[in-house]
């Protein structure tokens, strides 16, 4: 009679597939996972304490570094929260520019996330290059608008820091022409690949009945079959004027999370098309005139009280809880990070699978350590 013994293996923190400095202590029996314990904190940078000693606008560049892949989305979250707290109006043109940036971020994040997922499965660098190619084109657009590729710091309270330059729109049109072909090509890479389907179907299932109790949000929740999207649930900016669908999955496994992300890219493309049509007719300028001066941004004193502002980033629901004591610095600055909370069911999703599946499941949740550890 063969006897087996449980073994504790350490994955990370220095590991090419853990999406940053993330450590997992797995207890295995052979190659099957019995238990999984994640260890956080390798990228803890005191973001919330920095928020308490900085003024509201000084926190804006720090939010770029939360989810460092999607800096525009993080900026959006802080702007929504502070504008709610202080009662600042955002003009129509600024809102449309913000939505444009947020949806381009969604396309770039999902392209990269799917590409990295396939990379984690061992398909090495070729599919990664497919996703990164589109990402580079969108990063060029960001550089044109804000001056930086990744750490954009583009949003301000009341709008965005500057209007789109004249060369932005022609390049955006070029990008939009090439995107549908890219989506179809990318999806064909997934749907017609037997190895990929074998490795992702039935792996890492998060059942629909449990998904909400685990507090997951974003594509992971939608892949499990629950149609919850902050853009539809509590519309912010101009999302209630735009027409788009929220794709949901059926099984909640890794394969569903792939397909959800591809479909969300298509919906973002639809939104960007509508924004491009409406942008020439919008009014109001790129920022609320009373907040246009950087001195006004620095001197912002929201009335005492609290507010919770949330946005739908590509990873899930990003929320900022701010408590103001009437001064220029927040009394409490809390970031509700989607990647952190989406890791709650990781242990339960991985139980019973092999070690190689852990990497795939982790990739399908799509985490960024900057957000997990803050």
């Amino acid at each position, binding site marked *: 009679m063969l006897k087996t013994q449980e073994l504790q293996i350490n994955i990370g923190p220095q590991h090419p597939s853990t999406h940053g400095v993330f450590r997992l202590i797995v207890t295995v029996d052979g190659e099957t996972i019995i238990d999984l314990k994640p260890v956080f904190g390798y990228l803890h940078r005191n973001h919330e304490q920095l928020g308490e000693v900085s003024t509201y606008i000084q926190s804006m560049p720090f939010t770029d570094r939360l989810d460092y892949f999607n800096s525009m989305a993080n900026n959006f979250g802080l702007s929504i929260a502070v504008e709610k707290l202080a009662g600042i109006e955002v003009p129509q043109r600024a809102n449309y520019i913000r939505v444009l940036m947020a949806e381009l971020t969604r396309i770039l994040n999902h392209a990269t996330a799917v590409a990295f997922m396939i990379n984690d499965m061992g398909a090495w660098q070729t599919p990664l290059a497919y996703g990164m190619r589109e990402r580079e084109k969108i990063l060029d657009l960001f550089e044109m608008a804000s001056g930086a590729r990744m750490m954009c710091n583009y949003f301000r309270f009341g709008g965005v820091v500057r209007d789109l330059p004249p060369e932005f729109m022609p390049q955006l049109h070029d990008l939009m022409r090439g995107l549908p072909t890219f989506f179809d090509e990318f999806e064909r890479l997934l749907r017609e690949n037997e190895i990929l389907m074998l490795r992702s179907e039935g792996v890492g299932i998060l059942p629909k009945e449990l998904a*909400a109790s685990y507090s997951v949000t974003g594509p992971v929740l939608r892949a499990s079959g629950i149609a919850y999207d902050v853009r539809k649930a509590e519309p912010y900016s101009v999302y209630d004027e735009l027409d788009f669908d929220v794709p949901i999955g059926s099984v909640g496994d890794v394969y569903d999370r792939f397909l959800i992300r591809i479909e969300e890219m298509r919906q973002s493309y639809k939104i960007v098309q509508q924004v491009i049509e409406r942008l020439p007719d919008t009014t109001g300028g790129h920022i609320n005139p009373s907040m246009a001066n950087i001195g006004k941004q620095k001197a912002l004193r929201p009335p005492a*009280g609290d507010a919770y502002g949330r946005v739908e980033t590509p990873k899930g629901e990003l929320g900022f809880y701010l408590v103001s004591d009437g001064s220029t610095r927040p009394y409490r600055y809390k970031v509700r990070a989607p990647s952190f909370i989406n890791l709650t069911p990781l242990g339960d999703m991985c139980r019973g699978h092999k070690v190689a599946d852990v990497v795939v499941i982790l990739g399908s949740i799509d985490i960024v350590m900057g957000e997990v550890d803050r």
Partner: protein
Amino acid sequence: MPSMSTEELKERLIRDLPGALAPARARAEHANNGGSAPKADPLAKPKKGEEGPVDLLATKDAIVLAERIPDVARYVRDTLGYTLLTDLTAVDYLADGVIELIYRFVHLEGGPTLAIKTRVPRDRAVVPSITPFWPGADLQEREAFDMYGVDFPGHPNLVRVYMWDEFEGFPMRKDFPKQGDKYIDEEDEA
């Protein structure tokens, strides 16, 4: 889309869970609760002589006794239908000697969030854990424990999440020394 005002929530809590709501404080409420219609101009400098101490604890949200949190959480999930705990935040009010925990729930059909607050004294911060029946609170309660020192009896694995296990102190508390930290001094000596 389901939406519940704080008045309606408080009425339902009084009716269905008697004794859960904390007794009311005898002080004025903020105009700016949850960002609703602030009356002050955010760019105005406070005038000399008008700067009084700000009452940070005044709020319109429902404040619940700490020991009733599991009952209230079950009520919010099963009766009111808010099944997703989206945020669990701790705030340290040093001047008033309380730590406030805000539980924020969301209804899957949409609508604004529902906030339930509870306050515990700083030197005895104990709130029963809701993780046994609400697994989504697991990491969030661990973060409140790690950063603020709030104890959650009933939590299956209440260990630190960001700091290392042997770390002493609770970093986000307002009286945690920001400089001259004993770990920094040890590094300089080594």
